[in-house]
């Protein structure tokens, strides 16, 4: 990175684009939660920030906070931005209660569609959309799970477009990743800039591991008072392996691969140095299809033969449950506000992004006519792959995508291109506003809760709206500010 020592670091942070909400510099001036940060940036030169960034890189390297990208042999550091994001306690209250409400409804929905189908019978959601969804897993029909919790760990992706408007972009109810970055970002920020934490009250988030541990213990099979827990990973080559080990470590539980487990008499055991030990709760980071070659993908070598039978028999809890994909795909997403009303009798606190169903011919027509201004996504896609950002695509890219869309419209939804809020970010050119999203992690056991804080993902490329780490995104420490400086 090239910098000039004399250049004040604050040069770029006043850049406010019309129509885009800048979280630090609103139209009313500097946001109170950014006062301390503003003071620090004003005192810093770009060279100071470069040094901080180098310190952060060393720290992350030393701690091995890496991720792997498919097709690349070397591990990568996820880019960490040294300028944190601040969220006021009042804003956080809206976000957290909204996310909790959403996850309660989604868990109720999952338990319902795998039992009595009340919401389908009531005509709230068309039956064929759920029972005909390829992610609906008929083998889960009638399976009871402790407390009706199907998604023990949910990552709710939010974007902000104004001081008071948050939209839910999607719900991740299967294997949401990134929480380790939320925690390690905080640890790094505290080491790099302890003064921030002395001068203002920022809610700690370090207890996430214990919150998760308690929730998983809550959901142990009936009659097990002191369950043995494990995190299940596909292995060291997986992109999120760091996180798997990290969480196992924070919870003080086994980190297992499929080959470490064996099923006997419908119970799951780990092969240990002193023999077999029963495992009661598995936080699995392996997709449904690969969990059990006897029940699902017969070619899977990552899973455990017979584990689904043990699960059905109630002898092991899988977190998250099998079959959650039907609730977090982008077609079902449309119905979450209705689920909240149906199961909880409440009005949604957080809004969905207005969404066009391409399976509906009239909506498809609109989408095709407005491709240049919409974001189109695969219904079952994730990770920022397979989507079209209309305004950023050229005519050829749009034409290619159009052909895919027309081939199977029901595989796609479209949304308006939102003006995601920006936060000041340290990039090669200096400090500049970059678009961000927010992923809080909702943990469900006996209670539904979340630690104050979330993962902020930032699109490091100028103008980009794609925040995924696999697509060049970075992360920021995210503060919930109780008391500003």
């Amino acid at each position: 990175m090239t910098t000039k020592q004399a250049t004040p670091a604050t040069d770029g942070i006043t850049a406010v684009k019309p129509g885009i909400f800048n979280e630090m510099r609103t139209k009313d001036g500097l946001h109170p939660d950014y006062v301390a940060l503003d003071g620090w940036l004003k005192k810093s030169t770009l060279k100071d920030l470069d040094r901080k960034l180098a310190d952060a890189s060393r720290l992350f390297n030393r701690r091995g906070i890496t991720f792997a990208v498919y097709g690349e042999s070397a591990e990568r550091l996820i880019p960490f931005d040294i300028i944190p994001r601040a969220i006021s306690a009042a804003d956080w209250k809206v976000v957290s209660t909204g996310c909790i409400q959403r996850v309660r409804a989604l868990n109720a929905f999952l338990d319902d569609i795998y039992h009595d189908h009340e919401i389908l019978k009531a005509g709230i959601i068309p039956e064929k959309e759920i029972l005909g969804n390829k992610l609906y897993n008929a083998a889960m029909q009638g399976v009871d799970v402790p407390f009706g919790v199907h998604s023990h760990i949910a990552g709710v992706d939010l974007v902000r477009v104004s001081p008071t408007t948050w939209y839910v972009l999607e719900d991740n109810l299967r294997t949401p990743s990134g929480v380790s970055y939320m925690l390690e970002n905080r640890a790094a920020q505290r080491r790099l800039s302890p003064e921030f934490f002395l001068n203002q009250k920022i809610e700690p988030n370090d207890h996430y591991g214990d919150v998760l541990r308690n929730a998983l213990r809550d959901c142990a099979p009936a009659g097990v008072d002191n369950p043995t827990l494990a995190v299940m990973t596909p292995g060291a080559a997986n992109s999120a392996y760091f996180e798997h080990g990290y969480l196992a470590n924070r919870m003080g539980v086994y980190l297992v691969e499929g080959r470490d487990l064996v099923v006997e008499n419908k119970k799951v055991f780990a092969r240990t140095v002193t023999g077999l030990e029963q495992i009661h709760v598995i936080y699995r980071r392996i997709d449904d299809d690969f969990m059990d070659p006897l029940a699902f993908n017969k070619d899977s070598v990552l899973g455990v033969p017979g584990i689904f039978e043990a699960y059905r028999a109630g002898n092991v809890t899988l977190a998250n449950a099998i079959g959650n994909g039907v609730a977090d795909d982008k077609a079902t997403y449309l119905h979450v506000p209705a689920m909240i009303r149906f199961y909880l009798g409440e009005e949604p606190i957080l809004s969905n992004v207005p969404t066009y169903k391409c399976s509906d011919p009239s909506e498809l027509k609109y989408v095709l006519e407005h491709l240049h201004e919409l974001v189109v996504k695969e219904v079952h896609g994730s990770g920022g792959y397979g989507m079209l950002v209309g305004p950023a695509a050229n005519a050829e890219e749009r034409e290619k995508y159009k052909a895919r869309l027309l081939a199977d419209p029901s595989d796609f939804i479209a949304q308006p291109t939102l003006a995601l809020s920006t936060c000041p970010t340290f990039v090669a050119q200096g400090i500049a506003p970059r678009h961000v999203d927010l992923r809080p992690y909702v943990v469900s056991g006996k209670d539904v809760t979340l630690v104050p804080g979330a993962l902020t993902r930032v699109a490091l490329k100028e103008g980009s709206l794609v925040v995924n780490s696999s697509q060049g995104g970075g992360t920021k420490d995210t503060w919930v500010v109780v008391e500003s400086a």
Partner: protein
Amino acid sequence: MLSRIAGNCLWLARYLERAENTARLIGVAQTQSLMPEYHGGDPRPWRWLVDVAADDQALDKLPSHNPADAALELLIWNRDYASSIWSCLRAVRENARTARSRLTNALWEAANTTWIEARALDRDTVQARGIDDTLGWARHRCMWIRAAIHDLLEDDCAAIIAAGRAIERCDNTIRVLRAFVPAMKRDGAESKKPGTPGHRLWEAMLSAASVQDWYRKIYPEIGDLNSTVELIARYPQQPRSLVLSARKLEKALSHLSVAGSTTCLRRARDLVASIDRLAIGELVEDPERLSGLLLQLYSISDAFGYEHCGNDPPSQSQSQS
């Protein structure tokens, strides 16, 4: 503790010990090669080094011309040779990464940071830094990781790491004895006379076995081969002695064998008994007896892998991993 992770912990400990041993041994050979009796490119210091720190095939391939360069390349930065310092430190890190959930953050960071720096080891960086400095760095890094190991819980994981370290120490000590006892008998006639090549060879033997700080505190007569072998093999307070390492191995395996005696534990007990029975004079007379101990060690390692790490049953022919 998971059997698979047990294997990672065992090899973490073995490679860590091996990296440190190799760094120490290279330093000894390097110093020795600077002595007047080895001037003119005498290959002997490099031959014993490769004999101790590498495998038989490597020794056969050591060129007569410029063996120093070949030995340093093989043992410090070779990417393909599993026992080079570079490969050992990588293996320490990779095993720590897989076993991370059973380790402390301090231990993981020590292993990971060491590897981040070790990655750059190659001919150019070693030349720029100097061999001595490079070896010193490697040894200190190993000591740092070892210090972090001391803070582990005294549970299965610590027992397995202790077993790995003990196996590697036994292996290294036997190999040092096997290389140096014949050399001393051949070239160490004047070992009791300071300033002679024989005395310097004896000093090299002490350093190779890492007992140079102890010998003079324990034995009145310098340069005595029998006393040296006793210190290296049978002195129970000497931290790298064969007998102490074997007893530590037995203790670690006892910890793991809660359900009764296992094959590897029985074999470890046999090894301790073999060492206890060893007559120093006979060993000096016939150093080939040491090869029998090495085979016993291999059989323990194989049984350990089968009984505790979930490896396939060992084949009839024992092999060293």
